[in-house]
């Protein structure tokens, strides 16, 4: 291992290099957000990955999938990510699943942290439920571009949420709710054009990685575990979501009594 590689990040703590090498990160979704995240984790020094994505690279991904080249069209996204990691880490451990995480959920439970870069509210809900059940912090990022209305420009938005077991979940934060889930379900099958751009993904991914590093190292000394950042791509701002003022610290949707492998009670 090149001794100088980590010297510029030594402020993260004496044992940070060893910590990054031993922590297992699961990244679910390897598109615009996930590819940025993996590249950054590899640069920082993470060695253990569990990655999920059923898709292959398409031409339309090349505007934003970091690490993918024109030659990668038709190649599994996971293959591209494996290459990105291997080009930066000498001996990484990379568990690859060319599937949705639901098809291979057990390995996910080994993760110390899950980073979700998913396209839908329902997928986020399901992933968060599993993360909560197995006491795994879950970092979620996402962006969207809403079409122009009445001559106004399109609106670019995004979010970064840290869902920490015991603390406010995405339902507590109001990000996941029956209205948004119902609306999404009603549009099922009409997925259509889903705008994504590299710079917005980059901002969200980089910030998420920074939050993840804080979570692992505590280098800032911050003790504020509830993180919900709202991105405005038109104004180029990233701010704590206004809803945070009204959120309870403790989660009511995922009590600790329900953690572990599910058990049904006879009635």
């Amino acid at each position, binding site marked *: 291992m090149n001794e100088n590689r980590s010297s510029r990040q030594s402020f993260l703590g004496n044992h940070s290099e060893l*910590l990054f090498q031993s922590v297992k990160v699961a990244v679910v979704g390897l598109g615009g957000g996930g590819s940025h995240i993996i590249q950054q984790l590899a640069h920082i020094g993470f060695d253990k990955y569990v990655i999920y994505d059923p898709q292959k690279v398409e031409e339309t991904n090349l505007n934003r999938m970091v690490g993918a080249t024109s030659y990668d069209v038709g190649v599994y996204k996971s293959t591209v990510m494996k290459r990105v990691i291997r080009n930066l880490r000498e001996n990484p451990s990379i568990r690859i699943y060319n599937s949705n995480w639901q098809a291979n959920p057990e390995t996910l439970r080994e993760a110390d942290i899950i980073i979700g870069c998913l396209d839908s509210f329902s997928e986020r809900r399901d992933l968060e439920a599993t993360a909560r059940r197995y006491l795994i912090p879950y970092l979620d990022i996402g962006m969207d571009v809403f079409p122009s209305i009445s001559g106004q420009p399109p609106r670019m938005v995004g979010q970064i949420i840290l869902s920490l077991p015991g603390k406010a979940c995405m339902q507590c934060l109001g990000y996941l709710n029956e209205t948004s889930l119902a609306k999404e379900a009603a549009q099922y099958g009409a997925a259509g054009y889903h705008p994504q751009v590299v710079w917005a993904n980059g901002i969200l991914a980089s910030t998420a990685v920074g939050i993840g590093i804080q979570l692992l190292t505590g280098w800032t000394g911050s003790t504020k575990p509830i993180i919900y950042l709202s991105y405005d791509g038109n104004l180029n701002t990233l701010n704590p979501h206004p809803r945070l003022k009204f959120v309870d610290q403790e989660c009511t949707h995922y009590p600790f009594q329900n*953690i572990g492998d599910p058990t049904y009670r006879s009635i």
Partner: protein
Amino acid sequence: MNLNIHIKIPRTIYNTAKSDLSRNHPYALERVGFLFGKVGKINSVSKLILINDYFPIDDTDYIEDDQVGAKINSEAIHKVMQKILDTNSGALHTHLHNFPGVPSLSKVDKQSIPPLVRSFQHIVPSQIHGIFLFHSNHHKSWIIPPGANNIKLANKITVVGYPLSINIYE
């Protein structure tokens, strides 16, 4: 079978337990408590123990004995066993050695605690029972694998909070 055990404990519960165990007792030198948790299966050789509760022992359930740090009575054990049964949980006997250093079980700990923990296996054999030892600046855990008699070191302990605290034990 070489079982790989990773214990995860929420920071709130960790702090509650440690705080309770740090309190002085009228006559016992140490306090005892029990961490309760549920198994999360990863595969046939790797399991999580997910701690979801801390059960303190009432002051009146200690037996005065100056030969040992702490001794609890049968009433206390009965309460713990009932809770194991009622919640279908695993239980980790826990106490605090209030000095820094690498945690290790004392001779008395090694003699007295494993038989108690083995008795928990009869109540809920599907869950994992064991010992969780706090030191002032560290912690360690040993478990008795289901169906086994031997006591083994838990491979990893994560305190889940902000920040995360991860300790790996060889």
